[in-house]
């Protein structure tokens, strides 16, 4: 069965510093991978996705993620964060060709002034 692990429940970081949010998954088949952001009292907004091709994926708001098949990871990075990046970030996986997303428990990014 698939699963997603986001080991860091909270990540505090100072404004303009770099950040990495970790995501590891387990699956016996090929997968699609996603990062979503959730601002307070809002739904999930797609940041980026890996479907195939280049393992380095660029998304919105300056975020990027790298798919590492051997380490079964899909870590999210941003070289310089802003206060407005404070939110909850969710990693999700789905088996190729299927619709069901399995989400991690989320990482709360808090950007400090």
């Amino acid at each position, binding site marked *: 069965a698939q699963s*997603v692990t986001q080991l860091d429940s909270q990540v505090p970081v100072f404004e303009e510093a770099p950040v990495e949010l970790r995501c590891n998954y387990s699956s016996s088949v090929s997968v699609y991978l*996603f990062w*979503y952001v959730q601002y307070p*009292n*809002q*739904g*999930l*907004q*797609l940041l980026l*996705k890996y479907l195939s091709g280049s393992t380095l994926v660029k998304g919105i708001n300056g975020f990027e993620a790298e798919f590492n098949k051997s380490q079964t990871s899909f870590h999210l990075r941003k070289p310089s964060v802003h206060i407005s990046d404070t939110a909850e970030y*969710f990693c*999700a996986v789905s088996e190729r*060709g*299927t*619709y*069901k*997303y*399995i*989400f*991690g*428990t*989320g990482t709360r990014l808090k950007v400090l002034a």
Partner: protein
Amino acid sequence: GAGVSQTPSNKVTEKGKYVELRCDPISGHTALYWYRQSLGQGPEFLIYFQGTGAADDSGLPNDRFFAVRPEGSVSTLKIQRTERGDSAVYLCASSRDGNQPQHFGDGTRLSIL
């Protein structure tokens, strides 16, 4: 165009009551999904519609939960005999088809007193 719309945004009701939650997907999206997000958790899959039919309802927790999509557009999630444990944010998502990234609404926060 408009995103996924969910109504109401908040619903407070007493234990044992019946509730209906509505989801209006993005126009032209044939696939529709319901998720439940408990406090501090990632969304958990409930049910997936392709067109009018429920292609996968394996995530519905028990027979008190039911969902319909009679015309292949708007969907209603129905919960009978609500229990305090049903309190959560119910998220709806839609996609162009079952293989495309999912776009989420802002959710309905359901509180059972």
